[in-house]
């Protein structure tokens, strides 16, 4: 039985990926000619633990590769070799290789062996070693030769039934082997009979012992000298072959599942096989994505403290309830208030467990900028700030790709090449700034650059030529910038492999909207542009304003409310007797009667008798007409789709204090619905 190493694979892989991230960011800090010992040490340590781990778990390809990497790093560390840009680049590429190999291991898929080989060759070329020398050192560490300098011995120790009766204790023997080095013992219970048939003096167990030590075989044999006749003993050197054997059943299983269904089919069609292969691949994938989260011990401690206090409060209240006396009512109220406070704190700290600093998302950008700037021939300085700003893990995962896209866009289209910048009187090095901060219940992420900015005329003519707007349409700056988020819009003159296919920005906006966020852009030609993303901190809880329409209670997310007001008759205007607008200061805002959209019986149909809640979504404002404003409270968002389906204009539901359900309004959705409604009205007019 022994220890099943595969249960540690996930942990090892996770740690290795973290190690790779550390290596990457440290490498980016490593400038040519500067061998800051601490940075080099950090890189070396990460590489070393990946090598050690992968050798232990039998990922020989990774171990071999990282060994070469480690050798190079060791030379740098001991200052035998100076850091050059080419070394840094080679190291960065090897980080990619290790990552792809580990990912392949995780997903049980293949990696690009040729690429790994070429990078390994480059590393070896830098090392100045001929391939064979490196190969030899690798063998020493990983696969272990067959002679004395092997990694250790595999001892297959099967005592005969009567061994204990001869006065030899197998445990003593194992203990003795232990004195030689590190042991890994697998006990086999195969021969263990039923308890009723067991003889106390018989030895039913056998052992498979892996000894990690460089002692001679004879030393090991000596220990077994007294029991040689009472047992079956096989001693063989530990080699990598055993490890590959361990992994092979997985392969066999895979091939078996691939082939078997085809065989059972009476008339196998050639199409079937690739399909099954795909199915096998797909099935194995989620295993690797087994999501886990690393939580700081302080956060856990805080939780335990809070739970402790909650228990105390609960027992106090319980005690009071049992001996209830009306004179104690005040104490009871105090206790309840305490309970409420603790519950809220508990809720907050549980939510905090899901919160990660945004540096997890930002970390990949130094590398991206480093690679792209050399590819594009631009000089770019990346500034990061607010990396400690925390946001929900789910939000973080979903925001990663849109952010990459936006940064790429800035690098590709926004920032100019050094000569153009010089001609425009700007410093040669462009600045790309990523910033994050909290504002209200949201997190704001800003991506700004001091590049060329958006060219309004170019956007306009492009939009006209692709039929998005009419030629004589008058657009505000905001509307023009909004055009770049339309599907199929791209002004890049040449489609590069970075961006310019026009499939990006609309996807970016859609992803952000799906998270309940918004994205907008400000730009000044010649001075740069700034993209601002606003996202909710968490997807599970939000602050809501309760409103009443007829007998129904709805919840409007507070983040989207601008203000609520009592309508004045003179500010309400009708446009062709169809649409109603409200004049708020110098803006005309479309009035949306919630009862009309949701088909309800309202208390009043006169706008001046109810209230208008001004909300913003999809870049425009509407005034929601409701009967009454109720309280504000934090609501836990529940999905309607679990048991029903999506409802237009509703983003979810929640459970109120009295146990009833209330719908949460989807403000951007309502804006779209109101637009659709007014366009129907326009058709009627026409």
């Amino acid at each position, binding site marked *: 039985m022994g220890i099943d190493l595969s249960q540690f694979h996930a942990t090892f892989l996770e740690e290795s990926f973290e190690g790779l991230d550390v290596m990457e960011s440290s490498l980016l800090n490593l400038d040519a000619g500067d061998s800051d010992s601490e940075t080099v040490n950090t890189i070396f340590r990460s590489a070393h633990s990946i090598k050690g781990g992968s050798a232990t778990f039998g990922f020989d390809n990774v171990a071999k590769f990282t060994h070469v990497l480690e050798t190079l790093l060791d030379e740098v560390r001991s200052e035998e070799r100076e850091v050059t840009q080419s070394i840094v680049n080679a190291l960065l590429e090897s980080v990619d290789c290790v990552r792809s190999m580990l990912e392949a291991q995780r997903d049980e898929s293949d990696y690009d062996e040729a690429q790994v080989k070429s990078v390994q060759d480059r590393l070896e070329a830098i090392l100045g070693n001929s391939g064979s020398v490196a190969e030899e050192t690798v063998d020493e560490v990983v696969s272990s030769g067959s002679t004395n300098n092997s990694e250790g011995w595999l001892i297959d120790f099967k005592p005969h039934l009567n061994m204990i009766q001869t006065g030899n204790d197998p445990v003593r023997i194992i203990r003795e082997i232990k004195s030689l080095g590190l042991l890994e013992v697998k006990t086999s219970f195969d021969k263990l009979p039923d308890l009723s048939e067991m003889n106390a003096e018989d030895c039913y167990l056998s052992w498979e012992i892996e000894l990690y030590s460089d002692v001679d075989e004879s030393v090991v044999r000596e220990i077994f000298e007294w029991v040689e006749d009472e047992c079956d003993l096989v001693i063989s050197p530990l080699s990598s072959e055993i490890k590959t054997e361990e992994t092979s059943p997985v392969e066999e299983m895979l091939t078996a599942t691939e082939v078997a269904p085809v065989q059972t089919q009476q008339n196998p069609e050639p199409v079937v096989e690739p399909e099954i292969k795909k199915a096998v691949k797909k099935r194995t994938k989620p295993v690797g994505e087994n999501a886990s989260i690393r939580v700081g011990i302080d956060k856990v401690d805080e939780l335990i403290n809070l739970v402790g206090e909650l228990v105390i409060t609960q027992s106090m209240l319980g005690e009071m309830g049992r001996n209830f006396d009306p004179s104690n009512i005040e104490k009871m109220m105090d206790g309840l208030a305490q309970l409420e406070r603790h519950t809220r704190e508990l809720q907050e700290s549980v939510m905090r467990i899901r919160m990660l600093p945004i540096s997890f998302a930002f970390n990949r950008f130094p590398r991206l900028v480093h690679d792209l700037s050399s590819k594009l021939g631009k000089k770019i300085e990346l500034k990061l700030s607010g990396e400690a700003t925390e946001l929900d893990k789910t939000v973080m995962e979903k925001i990663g790709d849109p952010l990459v896209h936006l940064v790429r866009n800035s690098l590709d289209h926004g920032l100019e090449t050094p000569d153009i910048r010089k001609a425009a009187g700007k410093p040669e090095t462009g600045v790309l700034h990523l910033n994050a901060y909290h504002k209200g219940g949201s997190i704001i992420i800003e991506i700004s650059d001091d590049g060329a900015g958006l060219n309004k005329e170019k956007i306009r003519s492009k939009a006209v030529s692709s039929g998005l707007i009419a030629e004589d349409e008058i657009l505000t700056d905001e509307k023009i910038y909004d055009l770049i988020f339309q599907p199929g819009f791209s002004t890049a003159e040449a489609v590069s492999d970075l961006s310019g296919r026009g499939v990006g920005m609309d996807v970016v906006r859609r992803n952000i909207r799906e998270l309940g966020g918004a994205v907008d852009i400000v730009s000044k030609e010649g001075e740069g542009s700034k993209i601002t993303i606003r996202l909710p901190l968490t997807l599970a809880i939000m602050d809501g304003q309760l409103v009443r329409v007829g007998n129904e209670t709805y919840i409007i997310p507070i983040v989207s409310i601008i203000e609520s007001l009592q309508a004045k008759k003179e500010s309400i205007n009708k446009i062709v007797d169809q649409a109603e607008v409200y004049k708020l200061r110098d803006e005309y805002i479309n009035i949306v009667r919630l009862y009309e959209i949701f088909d309800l019986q309202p208390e009043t149909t006169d706008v001046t008798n109810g209230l208008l809640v001004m909300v913003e979504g999809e870049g425009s404002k509407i005034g929601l007409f409701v009967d009454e404003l109720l309280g504000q409270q934090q609501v836990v968002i529940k999905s309607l789709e679990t048991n*029903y389906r999506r409802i237009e204009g509703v983003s979810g539901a929640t459970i109120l204090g009295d146990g009833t*359900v209330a719908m949460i309004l989807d403000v951007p959705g309502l804006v779209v619905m109101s637009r659709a409604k007014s366009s129907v009205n326009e058709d009627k007019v026409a």
Partner: protein
Amino acid sequence: MTTTAQAVDLQTDYGVSADVENQYLTFILNDEEYGVDILRVQEIRGWESVTSVPNAPEYLKGVINIRGTIVPIVDLRMRFGMDNLEYGPITVVIVLKVIGDNRERVMGIVVDTVSDTYDVPEDSIKPAPDFGDKIEVAFVKGLATVNEKMLILLDIDKLLNSGELNILD
């Protein structure tokens, strides 16, 4: 097979006799007796007020909160196009597990009253005759006779995944 596992559980835990797989919970709707697979019944509750769902079909009365999950409630009379009945003290909601599109949903149906449970052997279920346009036959799993009474056995998966209740719709 989860159904068999549950069947065993019921037998051992509650001493339910014989073949639980063929037990049906019956309810009354417009004086007719309908049956649903008893293993699909999660609970039976009295009628309580619901939160209406905007722009939903008329027979979807609304949603209620059952221990933290939001459960839609369908009025079966309205679904079948029968006359409405005033909800009273014996009006009940049967909460059912509905399987469709590879997922399990929980939904409630409003019926006039709950009647009984019967063992209906699989081979005594007769296919439903063609009702013409009146009832969608697809929702009827079959007809059975118990104690000289006719039972209409419903296929709740088809019924509660049909029309506007279908998530893909």
